[in-house]
């Protein structure tokens, strides 16, 4: 078929190719099924079961949080189906939940591994939507992943109840009509930490930032910078570090001679464990700089990370969404049933995921349907209590929950292996509230 070393596209082969292409182009009509018909995505119709999708990192730098989230999801499903002791179902007000599933349908679930990567997370979410036909997707642990999955959910018309995601962008410039966040954000962390930092470390400090190089790190650095500079602190340098770096020594060494006297670690998960441990090993905390004790601040703190970092966290300040040592009724009920199930207290990641699942189920009950636009309207502006954070509101304008924020300190004398964080201050909601317009972004349409 070929002569003189050139491709020979004869009339015959062209015809063949043409015919094949025509056949190929017509094929979609033969095989396309179920593409249309349902009035909304994954309508359960008369099925006796509904499925929720839990998309969490089971591998990668945030996997510890992910595994704890998964435990909480399973517990929430159990409680929704009326099994176990009911947990927060008993303390949650105003609740429409009956303990017989959602709208009388038994709840089941599908799980996926996000690998802490946007690509893998979206593939996994797509599998859950297209194959497992889930009605709602929850999970996260990385804001980059949460934002990627949230925008996918908007396109697909499936509600996304964000798990642990702390970036301002999730409900800021990247907010979506189908996405909801119970967790607090970097801005609130900054506002809550500000007064405490002033009280503890004074007004004249020089701060050095090490920041995880993605959306969460960027917004947290920005918020912390704003807060500290308002106090009168100076920012010496802000350095971005790759996520999952493992070894941070090359970033910590320059801190020693930078003239800074506070190191702000905008890291999370295993990254924070590694960078904090190394910073302490390098003797940062025993140093004196500018005539003051050198201090380290970890704006987003979690018990799981504290467990990983061991002695390094003692005395270090940070903020958190929730801590298991809280004494209110809701927290106690949750800690009790989580502990009975898994033998350890829940982390704040577990708490927010558990609450999100209950809130979604409750919104379906309130709306009386699974039809997403109605469920969204039920969630928007919803005020509730008894979920461990005191009175809480889902702001309608940006789908962000507003509640008190905890400022915590690494416990100097822990009484047990879980008693690692000590609540320094419970910052009231009014202090961390902000105008939703400051971050820009648009929610988009109810119907997709």
């Amino acid at each position, binding site marked *: *078929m*070929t002569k003189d*070393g050139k*491709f020979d596209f004869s009339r015959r082969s062209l015809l*063949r*190719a043409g015919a*094949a*292409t025509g*056949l*190929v*182009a017509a*094929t*979609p009509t033969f*095989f*396309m099924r179920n*593409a249309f018909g349902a009035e909304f995505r994954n309508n359960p119709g008369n099925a006796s079961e509904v499925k929720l999708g839990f998309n969490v990192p*089971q*591998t990668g730098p945030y996997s510890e949080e992910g595994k704890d989230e998964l435990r909480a999801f399973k517990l929430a499903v159990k409680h929704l189906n009326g099994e176990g002791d009911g947990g927060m179902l008993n303390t949650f007000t105003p609740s429409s939940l009956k303990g017989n599933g959602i709208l009388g349908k038994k709840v089941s679930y*599908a*799980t*996926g*591994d996000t690998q802490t*990567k*946007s*690509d*893998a997370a*979206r*593939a*996994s979410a*797509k*599998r859950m939507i*297209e*194959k497992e036909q889930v009605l709602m997707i929850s999970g996260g642990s990385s804001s*980059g992943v949460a*934002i*990627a999955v949230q*925008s*996918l959910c*908007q*396109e697909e018309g499936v509600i996304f109840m964000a798990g642990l995601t702390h970036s301002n962008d999730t409900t800021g410039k*990247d907010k979506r009509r189908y996405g909801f966040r119970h967790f607090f954000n970097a801005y609130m962390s900054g506002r809550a930490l500000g007064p405490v930092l002033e009280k503890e470390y004074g007004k004249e400090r020089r701060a050095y930032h090490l920041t995880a*190089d*993605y*959306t969460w790190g960027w917004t947290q650095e920005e918020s912390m910078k704003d807060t500290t500079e308002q106090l009168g602190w100076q920012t010496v340098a802000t350095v*971005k570090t*790759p*996520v999952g770096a493992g070894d941070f020594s090359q970033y910590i060494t320059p801190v020693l001679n930078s003239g800074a006297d506070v190191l702000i670690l905008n890291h999370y998960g295993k990254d924070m464990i590694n960078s904090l441990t190394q910073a302490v090993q390098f003797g940062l905390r025993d140093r004196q700089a500018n005539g003051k004790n050198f201090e380290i601040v970890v704006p987003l703190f979690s018990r799981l990370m504290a467990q990983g970092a061991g002695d390094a966290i003692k005395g270090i300040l940070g903020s958190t969404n929730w801590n298991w040592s809280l004494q209110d009724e809701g927290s106690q009920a949750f800690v009790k049933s989580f502990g009975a199930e898994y033998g350890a207290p829940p982390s704040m990641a577990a708490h927010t995921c558990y609450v999100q699942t209950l809130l979604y189920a409750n919104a379906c009950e309130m709306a009386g349907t699974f039809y997403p636009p109605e469920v969204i309207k039920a969630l928007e502006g919803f005020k509730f209590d008894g979920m461990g954070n005191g009175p809480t509101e889902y702001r309608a304008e940006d789908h962000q929950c507003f509640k008190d924020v905890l400022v915590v300190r690494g416990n100097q004398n822990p009484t047990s292996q879980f008693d690692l964080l000590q609540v320094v201050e419970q910052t009231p909601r009014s202090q961390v509230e902000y105008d939703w317009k400051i971050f820009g972004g*648009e929610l*988009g*349409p109810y119907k*997709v």
Partner: protein
Amino acid sequence: MKNGTMNDLTRFAIFAGVVLAMPLWLEPLGANYPDLLQKFAIYGIFAIGFNILFGLTGYLSFGHAAFLGIGSYAAVWSFKLFTMNAIPAVIFGVLFAGLLAYVIGFLSLRRTGIYFSILTLAFAQMSYNLAYSVLTPITNGETGLQLSQQDPRIIDSLFVEAGAGLPSTNLFGMKMSGYPGFYFCAVMLIICFFISMRIFRSPFGLMLKGIKSNQNRMNYTGLNTRPYALTAFVISGMYAGLAGSLLAVTDPLAGAERMQWTASGEVVLMTILGGVGTLVGPMIGAGLIKYFENIFSAFNNNVLADIFSFLPDSVSEVVVSVLGLFVGSGWHLTLGLLFMVVVIFLPGGIMEGIDRVISKFRSSRQPVADNKTVSSQNQPGE
């Protein structure tokens, strides 16, 4: 043209038929959902393209993910700047990948063997780091490049008013997610397969095979082999760029992790698993790896317990706990075992296994006449 036992046209027709009927025959395997079908087709293209380089010339590139990544970025930028139509995105993806492949190939092909592999790996890792941190304004780093409401979309804005939500990728109005997206990718795959087949059969393909068997001898005859190898490298890079742009067409997001060395390694695995130098092998390897990644990783112990519920409780508990190691996040383990088995017992990949089965089947039916057909199996190209 006859090669082996089957006419090329028949082979092409069977391939096209099998690919287009994927939603039917993958249904019982639990893999019939658009996202995975799209991945099968897209990574099939990636692997077929890789095989043009590795299978024909024997140059083992460890940096093909760079071309996949740049294809994705180019496609997403085309969505952001010009139009949501898939065609320009694909063209840009292929073009930019081709350019990058030309540059990397021009430098790397000065060396052969392991040195070539290391050079390509180094370039890919450089591209990854550029995309991850240095070029953040263009690539949006770890967060990944995404569409936004504020994008200009010059061509689209001339014709239609921007809607309330983000627009979706389309092919002249046909939405490119779900099954239509799969058929778009499948048609691309079939075209790519056709081109690859023509390359395998052409004098150019023969020249590439010559490079693989003995490059020195080729040079002694007075032939400069490098332009041929470079052409193969660029074609193969363009295939990867096409695959990358299709990833963006079916899901408009590009992340730096697409360029990571693990992604380069994956395509090598796919090709070796399926059969290096065969036409269909890489496609089979790609399908198998994606199937493992998506289906096996989603199994959890509950699913396993369901499957083995027919066994007595004590037995099923043991079986579930042992098998649990190999599914879920342990799917890599299963894949590793499978890879070892294939490489040790079937060095020619799964295609060799299929050939063996077929020849056994034939020889039991016609014990005398099969000598000739068997001898052709060792030749590259089939």
